[in-house]
């Protein structure tokens, strides 16, 4: 009897201690970057498919956007991997263009191996490091080495370490894969900014969740759940069927999402 009481007491003490150390409750200003609209739990493998290299901007943008939401207070590092031979076909992330994604361009590390085996090794090595939040691997072509077993291996490693892997792939073919989530990202016509009807507006993507589910929601349609989102400095913003974003904008503000600029400051401080 006494033993169970002491045990219960100890459990409660630990729970209180956990609540007190939780930054969310302790200090609202030090909140780590909140989960985005589409952010799934950390520690999983994602495949982000684009139809071809021409859509690579949108796919990489989505991957970096997701990577930003994977960052935590003491888990900040994001790595970008690309085979050296693929650089001209796909283009390299441009340091001056990364600001809009809340990533510190001077701290993003590019890994450029020669072979796919080295690339897979580098992903594994990176997610084993406890300072790495996410690894974005940009792979232009299908490879034999990147099969179900390889993706299963990565999934297990990612689940064990808590770091996320985002594999950016190209084409319409889908191979067997153990990745928990598969996204298809294609660009969509943007809404022009209010001051110039002929200018491009915020990036707008049509994101299809082909595999996996978010937050216990059931799959909406056989083809997968489809989101039409804008990428703003506050994060993702849902776009309704008429192409309006007004309601979502307010919702994002109410939920207390710090702006990307605030996120930047946090990452500089951390």
């Amino acid at each position: 009897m006494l033993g169970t009481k002491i045990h219960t007491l100890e459990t409660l003490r630990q729970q209180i201690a956990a609540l007190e150390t939780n930054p969310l409750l302790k200090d609202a200003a030090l909140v780590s970057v909140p989960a985005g609209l589409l952010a799934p739990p950390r520690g999983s493998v994602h495949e982000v498919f684009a139809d071809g290299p021409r859509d690579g901007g949108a796919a990489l943008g989505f991957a970096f956007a997701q990577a930003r939401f994977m960052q935590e207070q003491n888990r900040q590092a994001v790595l970008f991997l690309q085979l050296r031979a693929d650089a001209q076909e796909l283009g390299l992330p441009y340091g001056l263009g990364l600001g809009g994604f809340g990533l510190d361009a001077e701290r993003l590390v590019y890994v450029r191996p020669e072979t796919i085996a080295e690339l897979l090794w580098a992903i594994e090595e990176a997610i084993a490091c406890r300072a790495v939040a996410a690894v974005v691997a940009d792979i232009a072509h299908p490879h034999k080495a990147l099969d179900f077993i390889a993706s299963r291996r990565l999934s297990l490693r990612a689940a064990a370490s808590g770091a996320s892997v985002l594999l950016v792939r190209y084409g319409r073919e889908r191979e067997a894969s153990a990745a928990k989530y598969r996204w298809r990202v294609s660009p969509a016509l943007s809404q022009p900014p209010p001051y110039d009807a002929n200018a491009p507006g915020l990036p707008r993507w049509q994101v299809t969740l082909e595999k996996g589910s978010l937050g216990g929601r059931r799959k909406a349609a056989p083809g997968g759940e489809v989101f039409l989102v804008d990428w703003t400095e506050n994060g993702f913003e849902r776009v309704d069927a008429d192409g309006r974003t007004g309601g979502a904008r307010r919702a994002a503000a109410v939920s207390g999402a710090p702006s990307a600029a605030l996120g930047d400051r946090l990452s500089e401080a951390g």
Partner: protein
Amino acid sequence: MKLVALDLRASAAGLFIGQNVSDARGLVTNLELREIDRPFIEQVFADFADWHSNASPIVAVHKAQASWGDLIVDVTGVSHLFGGEERMLETMTGRLEALGITVSGAIGPNIGTAWALVHHSYPQVVQDNVMGALAGLPVAALRLEEAQIEGLRHLGLKRIGQLYGRDRRALQARFGASLLLRLDQALGYVEERLTPRLPLAEHYVERLFAEPIGLIDDVLMTSGDLALQLSNRLEREGLGAQAFHLFLYRVDHKVMTLSVKAARATRDALHIGRLFAHRAERLQGEYDAGFGIDMIRLAAGSITALSEAQIGAFSIDDGAASLDQLHDRMTSRLGSLAVVRNSFANTHIPERAVTLEPVVNPQPKEPLPLLPIAAPRPLRLLPQPEPISVSLAEVPDGPPPNMVWRRVTYRFVKSSGPERIGAEWWLSRSKLKMKGEETKEGAHSDTPERHYREGEAARDYFLAEDDGGRRFWIFRQGLFGAAEAPEWFLHGFFS
């Protein structure tokens, strides 16, 4: 053509070094001649010399006289490891003789003495009475030129002892200062420097094997053990190192070197061992143990102070150290140019504004104020802008209505721009052309393929969105109305 080297049978037949080839052929009709390949011999001899660093860290090759060089080993402070100088000389020459190499060796208080004994006497150790030991040797033992030896012979000065006590001024006037220098060097009055072939490591640990080992796994296991020893030693002295070199001494007189670098000074044995394991993965076919490895040495370089406090328990654990170790491991396996990060420069030219530099051991650079950027920049940039063909813009300076890139047509519906980025003419190597100075260099017709010319003309950049929502960063190089028609390129993609 002259003879530079002979084997035993040839010298037994009466041939000698320096003899004319035609004379030699006359004496020995079935003479087999090979032309000497000096770079090859030097290379082989250098490898051979490196291997002797297992006896003493300072080895050098003396190129002055013999056609392949003389091996010089500085035995100061190491001879006791062999049980004295005599024993050391016996061991070192004996093991070479066992391999079938004709060798002559001597130990002397300076390079000149040892050289004279090796070339003109029997193997011996001379410690004190240098003058006495050299007195009976011919003057050629002083490393003199042919003309000097000849001149001394004419004067009847055949032995080194005959030079002692001679009038130095007269000798210098007759034979030049080099004779006196050589004499002084041999007698130890003038110090002679030697240039060590391998970098001197103050901190190293090594292991000898009774039986040679060959497997790379064994080598790596040993390197792990050695790393532990080295880290203990560094810890005692409060030091850390950024470079580590593994020397593998093969039985057949070759040395293999593996080097790894760390982003921050370390003495973490596990980390060092892992770096070598990753470096070995990159060796692939290069690793060749030959007949085995009988000694391994691990040396530390770029040593800096690393106090206990810096790696103590009270430091904030922000993961930076483990991230640095990750970068080290990746660099050691993939190469330093494969693990890079952005570095910014103050220029408006997009491809010059950002460079990728190694994460580990980056080149130090001066921080410069960065230029503000007015227009948005793309998420992806093509390393080399790709030419596109466009139909003519409605307004001469406006954006094009479409483009053909990689054989696919894209129709633009929205665009913004232009952002004009001027050429950095002050960096361009070509001279500024004055008006009216046009030469015939403009005849580019024999190069039909369009190519992107860096920094030749101003560019106008546009952000163009096609009917599928894809956003491209395209630019026009050159102006309408100029001598050459402007050309269009695709430079990047927006998200």
